């Protein structure tokens, strides 16, 4: 693999179910991010991780959790999905997490919560 991969590509989920979106990068980047993209609201940061073992909250963290057990993987979990979490989710990474670092984005996961 090269760059960032996300899985699944798309998913339809019943409300109340638990769901984990997967993200893997092979660039040995220290920082990783999760965004959601909604029409009219743009890209909004959910959670981030500046290095393995650390995570932080972004602009819209409620209802989501993340872990960063190693450098390559950054899964996003919805503990109990709600319809307002219907969105396109993008994972991204950057070399250091410093402001102005180039972010590399995955292809996205389209999630529909019914």
């Amino acid at each position, binding site marked *: 693999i090269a760059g960032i991969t996300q899985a699944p590509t798309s998913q339809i989920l019943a409300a109340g179910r638990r769901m984990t979106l997967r993200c893997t990068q092979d660039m040995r980047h220290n920082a990783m991010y999760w965004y959601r993209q909604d029409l009219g609201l743009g*890209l909004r940061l959910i959670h981030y991780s500046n290095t393995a073992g650390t995570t932080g909250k972004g602009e819209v963290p409620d209802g989501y959790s993340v872990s960063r057990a190693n450098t390559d993987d950054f899964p996003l979990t919805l503990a109990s999905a709600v319809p307002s979490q219907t969105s396109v989710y993008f994972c991204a990474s950057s070399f250091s997490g410093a402001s102005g670092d*180039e972010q590399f984005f995955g292809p*996205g996961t389209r999630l529909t919560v019914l």
Partner: protein
Amino acid sequence: TQLLEQSPQFLSIQEGENLTVYCNSSSVFSSLQWYRQEPGEGPVLLVTVVTGGEVKKLKRLTFQFGDARKDSSLHITAAQPGDTGLYLCSPGGSNYKLTFGKGTLLTVNP
């Protein structure tokens, strides 16, 4: 108060036309990035501008950072259908990291 304002929100033009899109704020940024997102894909970095007044060119795309580092513009000359996409700006600076404007959705018709 919105940190970034991108305008126009939507733009539909014919192939060969020129266009300019804007990214404005009342805040000063240490740098500013422009990304392009094609349909069904994630955003891809086009350029980073750092110095006030800086102009960078990328083939038919010209990026300018305002003298006061509060705004930026992207000018496309002789637009082509391949330029179609969502253009996003993202400011740099410790207080603004990981923020994006809502973008300009550009459609270039053949």
